[in-house]
């Protein structure tokens, strides 16, 4: 029996994906199942819905969740507003690629070290730690994730579009609004996804840059697991996951729409 199997076994391309499938199974699927199971267990491993009750009836969880979403939206918006002009200008410059590297370079330093350094600077400047500093830290950490996809998309746009628009008598503003902006929507979408989702689940930045006074959803999850409240912590993780899935879904929807926009340009 075994011999036959070995004979039939051929080293196809598919085989090379197996290690990754195994990895996925071990470190993504199984943990997810564990979270799901834990959500329904109380401290003594008995089945319960109590964790859901604890989470959904507590005003603290809504406040924390609301704060996290607010921080996420504001960070994403600031990153977009700051990042778009940078990416646009850099894509017009011949040395743009090099300068983008300068923007991305800080990413190679561990974010914890960067955040601690930021904190030290704030303290030296006598800035009171709070919401403002947390937002600064978030933007500082996630701005490269906005600039990168935007720069790639914008520099990938065919120059002949601009030329055609100019030939047809469009002024500079119109060229930008009718060619560059619509054509870079996919970059904007992936930028937003790459900033918003990590922001709403981040925890260390808010903890460090507000001395623990700004308590975000990630902090709350961390505290629950640290204090052995696996049930409530699992539910929070599931809620977080739901938010990630929802925002992904919305982004994909947008992306599909932007394809239409692109097609409609023809």
């Amino acid at each position, binding site marked *: 029996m075994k011999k036959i199997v070995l004979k039939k076994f051929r080293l196809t391309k598919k085989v090379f994906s197996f*290690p990754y499938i*195994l990895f996925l199974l071990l470190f993504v699927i199984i943990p997810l199942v564990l979270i799901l199971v834990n959500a329904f267990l109380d401290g003594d491993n008995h089945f319960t819905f109590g964790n859901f009750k604890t989470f959904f009836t507590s005003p603290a969880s809504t406040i*924390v969740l*609301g704060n996290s979403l607010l921080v996420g939206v504001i960070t994403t918006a600031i990153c977009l507003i700051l990042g778009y002009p940078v990416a646009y200008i850099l894509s017009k410059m011949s040395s743009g690629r090099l300068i983008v590297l300068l923007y991305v370079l800080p990413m190679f330093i561990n974010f914890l070290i960067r955040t601690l350094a930021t904190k030290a600077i704030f303290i030296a400047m006598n800035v009171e730690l709070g919401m403002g500093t947390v937002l600064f830290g978030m933007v500082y950490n996630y701005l490269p994730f906005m600039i990168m996809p935007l720069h790639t998309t914008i520099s990938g746009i065919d120059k002949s579009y601009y030329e055609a628009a100019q030939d047809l008598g469009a002024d500079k503003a119109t060229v930008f609004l009718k060619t560059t902006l*619509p054509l870079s929507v996919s970059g904007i979408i992936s930028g937003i996804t790459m900033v918003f989702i990590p922001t709403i689940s981040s925890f260390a930045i808010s903890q460090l840059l507000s*001395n623990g006074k700004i308590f975000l959803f990630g902090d709350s999850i961390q505290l629950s697991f640290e204090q052995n409240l696996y049930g409530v912590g699992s539910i929070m993780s599931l809620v977080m996951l739901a938010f990630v899935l929802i925002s992904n879904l919305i982004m994909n929807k947008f992306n599909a729409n932007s394809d239409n*926009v692109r*097609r409609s340009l023809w």
Partner: protein
Amino acid sequence: MSKRIFKLFIPLIALAMVLLPLLAACNSSGGGASAGVDSLVIYNWEDYIDGGDSEMGRNDIRDDFADYYYQVTGRKLNVTYTTFDTNETMLTKVLKGDAKVDLICPSEYAIEKLLTAGLLQNQKALYSFLKPQLDEYGLSLDYMSSVGLGDGAIEPDIMQVIKSQFGAIQSGSSTHDMTEYMVPYMWGTLGILYNKSVISEEDLQTYGWGVLWNEQHSNLLENKILMKDSVRDTYAAALFYMYEYGKLPQKYSDISSAQDVINITDDEMLEAAEAILTEQREHISGYEVDFGKDDMLNEVVYADFAWSGDALWAIEESYDEQTDDYFLGYYCPTGENPMTHRQRFSNIWYDGWVIPNTVKNPLAAMLFIDYMCRPQNAIRNSIEIGYTCAVAKDRLSSAEDVLSYIEEQEYDVDEYFDDIGRYPTIDSSLGVMRDFGPRNDALVNMWQRAKAGSAVNLSLLIIIAVIVAVIVIALSAYFIAQALKLRPRKL
């Protein structure tokens, strides 16, 4: 179909075959003893032992112990040292059976929890079991307090507190005396680490715990206070403050001892504590567990709710050459508040060595505890980490080598032992915190709410949010209009 499954399994099996021996190798190198070498696995707090100092020519105390072990038994010892940062981390690991260790050094309430779960070895029983072997080596373990030879080298007052609070712990159907399961290692109090130039001695005497709520309404202190990001400690502070200022709910009006106050965890008390902690948010800089000492030394904040050992360490570092004085001080609130005429309480805590059921080398574990309790070694650890060792004060001050060591480390012997921060009077105004049992979850939930605050200060946020919303709406309106305008018309 089945073929496909088989195909899937082959690389799986191959991978398992590669990984399993690797994993096994990892495991055995951690715990197993190769021929002629014994091993001892210690699970302790971070920075909680004398790690030596090569510049001063001082050995790591763990190496010294290995040498001592070799001397008495003739076998080499391989000491593996792992650390935890909170009792909860340690408890999670040990309760789930993930920690295969010989020795742990948790706090009293965590020991209570482990003992209740039946995970600890009775050291007295272990001693009689090891007795023949010990006799053979000519050892007696008489520095230990747990083996039935009196209090050993340990401070009798501390043993008294442990005996009275944890003398009868229920585990299943049997009752256990914690003094037979643990040997105290370090102890201390909770109090206020303060900056002398901002908070005067008089302020402390007048306001007591109220200093952490900025009761004196000092502009300098406002937003310059740090609390512990640790639920049990901060909860204790809230209770002490409420008691001192008469803010406890009506039904607790007849409570009059520190011990009773800090072990109340019913809903009404949690609610009151939550309100007090939420109120405190307006006055403090934030919560910390690790950077408080540094922030105090850098004068970023002026008051820090601290453990005595951390505080003493920070004071040591705060020596100012210009004024020839230390600019930080430690105050453990005691006595009576002159305004409210109510007693001040604080917390006394101690960490101790316990031997879990996972022990593989009980002899080395017992020898290690005994070794740590020797005055000479206790003072080494104590001076290195700043905390007060549990070895009796008169045992320390009567040992010649201890005194010379203290002087060698540039301390004044009298000052060292008379420091009220290091050696407070152990009386009824210091309460021991027990394990909260099933109420712990309710406490953590309260802490989550207190940390979340009412809501973020919205004035600035609303402005930003409105601007952002306007931009987003404008952009999306533009895109939708464009998309509609440019949509290819049907022919």
